[in-house]
C-alpha cells in the first residue's frame, strides 16, 4: 500500500484534497481534517492562502522579536502570532496579501482620535473618488454622506 499523503500545513495524514485549475494549470492542496476545518476549506480566500503557503520556501528565515513566532509557524497555522508579527512578516506577506486581498494598504476607519495624517490624506482621496462615482451613478444619498465625511476629514487635516 502506498504512503498516505501528508497535510500541506502540518504532518498529519491528509483527508481533504483540493484542486484548483487556473488557465489549465492544476494546483493541488492536501489538508488533514483539523487544518481543513480550521481554515474553512470551502472558503476560496483560504484556499488561495493554502495555495500560497505551500509554494513558499521551506527554510525558517524570520522570527518575530516580540513573540518568537517564525515563518514556519505561519506556514503550519496560516495565522500570525501577535500584532508585531505584521512588521516582521509584512514584506514577506506582501505577495500573499495581494493574492487574498487584491490590495495592500488600508483606506478604512481608524481607532478614535488616532488617524495619522498619511491615513487621513489617503482616505480623503478615496472619499473624493467615491463621491464622484456616487454622483455619476446618481446615488445622491451616498454622495451626501461622503460630502459630510470629506468636510470632516478636511477639518481634521487642517487641525492636525
Amino acid at each position: 500500500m502506498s504512503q498516505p499523503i501528508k497535510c500541506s500545513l502540518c504532518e498529519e495524514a491528509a483527508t481533504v484534497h483540493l484542486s484548483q485549475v487556473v488557465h489549465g494549470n492544476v494546483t493541488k492542496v492536501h489538508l488533514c481534517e483539523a487544518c481543513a476545518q480550521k481554515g474553512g476549506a470551502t472558503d476560496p480566500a483560504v484556499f488561495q492562502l493554502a495555495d500560497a503557503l505551500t509554494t513558499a520556501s521551506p527554510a525558517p528565515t524570520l522570527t518575530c522579536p516580540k513573540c518568537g513566532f517564525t515563518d514556519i509557524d505561519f506556514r503550519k497555522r496560516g495565522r500570525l502570532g501577535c500584532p508585531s508579527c505584521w512588521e516582521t512578516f509584512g514584506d514577506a506577506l506582501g505577495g500573499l496579501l495581494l493574492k487574498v486581498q487584491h490590495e495592500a494598504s488600508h483606506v478604512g476607519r481608524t481607532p478614535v482620535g488616532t488617524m495619522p495624517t498619511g491615513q487621513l490624506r489617503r482616505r480623503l482621496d478615496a472619499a473624493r473618488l467615491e463621491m464622484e462615482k456616487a454622483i455619476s451613478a446618481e446615488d445622491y444619498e451616498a454622495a451626501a454622506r461622503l460630502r459630510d465625511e470629506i468636510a470632516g476629514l478636511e477639518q481634521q487635516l487642517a487641525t492636525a
Partner: protein
Amino acid sequence: MSSVEDILAAENELTHLLGAQQAVVLSTRIRLARNLDGMPFPGWAKVPQRKEISDRCIEALDALPKFRRGHVLRMGELADRDRAVLVERHLVSKELAAGKSGAAVISRDQTCSVMVNEEDHLRIQVVKAGWHLRGTWHIAEQLDDALGGSLKLAFSDRLGYLTACPTNVGTGLRASAMVHLPGLCLAGHMDKVSRALNQDGLAVRGWLGEGTEAAGNVFQISNQQTLGLSEEAILKHLGGWIKNVVEQEWNARRKLAQEEGEKFVDRLARSLGVLRSARLLTSSEAMNMLSHLRLACDMGCLPEERRHLVDRLMIEGQPAHVQARAGQELDSDGRDRRRATVVREALKDFPEVAPPTA
C-alpha cells in the same frame, strides 16, 4: 436560571419580530475583528496571557451601556449543550464554543455579541432581523469607537486593524446577509448565482457559516476583501449585490408560481400537511419544509404575520435547541419525536395554503 436559559426564554428580534422587511433577507450581520495592542493573538498566546486578554476585554465590554443587564458567558463554564445553543443562535462561532478560554459578551436584546479570544481578541458582531445594512453598521461602528476609547487596539497606518489571519486585516469587517432563496434553488439557478457572487469577491455559505450546508435554502452572503477598500465601499458592494439577488429571487418565485400554477401551491400545501401531522421530523427535513412555509408567507399563500413563527421554528428546531427546550439529553429519535411535537403544536391553528397573491 442560567444565562443561556435566559437567552432562550427572552423574546428577540430574530424570533419574534413582525415586519414586511424580512421577506427573502432573514437578517443582516456586521462583524469587526479587533485585537489588543502588544498582546499575542489567542491562537499563539499562553494560558495566562489568554486569561489577561479575556479579563481586560470583558472589563471594557461590561462597562459599555450597550451591555447593561446583558450576559457574560465564559465557554469553560458552560455545559456542552448550552454552547451548542449559542452556536445555533449564531451568537458564538463553532470555533469559540470548541475552546475553553473563549468568552462571549451578549447584549440583553441579543443584537450585539462580542466574542473574546476567538481567532482574534475581539470579534464584535451586530445582527438585525431583516435587511438593515446601514442601521446594523451604525451600531457596530459605535461599539467599535466605544471600545477603542477604553482599549488600545492593534492598528497600523499602512495595514489598518491588525488581525491573526491575513484574510481579515485592514477593516476587519465582514458584512453579511442571511438570505432565503427557495425560488432560485427550485429553479436550479443557485449555482449560477453563487458563481457570479464568488467572481465578484463575495462568499456564499450555508446557514451556520463557514463549511456548512445550506439547509432550508438559507445562505449567508458576505464580503471577502477587507484591505484596500473603505467600510463604505465594502457595504455598498454587498448592498448592491443583495438588492440584485433579492430581485432575482422574486423573479424566480413569480415565474415558478405562474408556470407551475396548482403544482406550486400543492408543493407548499404538502409541506404544511407533513409538518402538521408528522410524528418524527429530522432537522434537515424540518428546515426544508419550513422553507416552503416561509415562501408561502412571502407569497401571500399563508398570512404574512405568521412568518416570524416559521423563523422561530427554524431556529428552535435545531438539535441543541430541541434538547434545551425538553430539558434533557435526547438521542436522535428522541429529538426527531420532540421536534415533530413542537412543530405540530405550533402549526395547529395555521390556515390552509391558498393561491399566491404576491
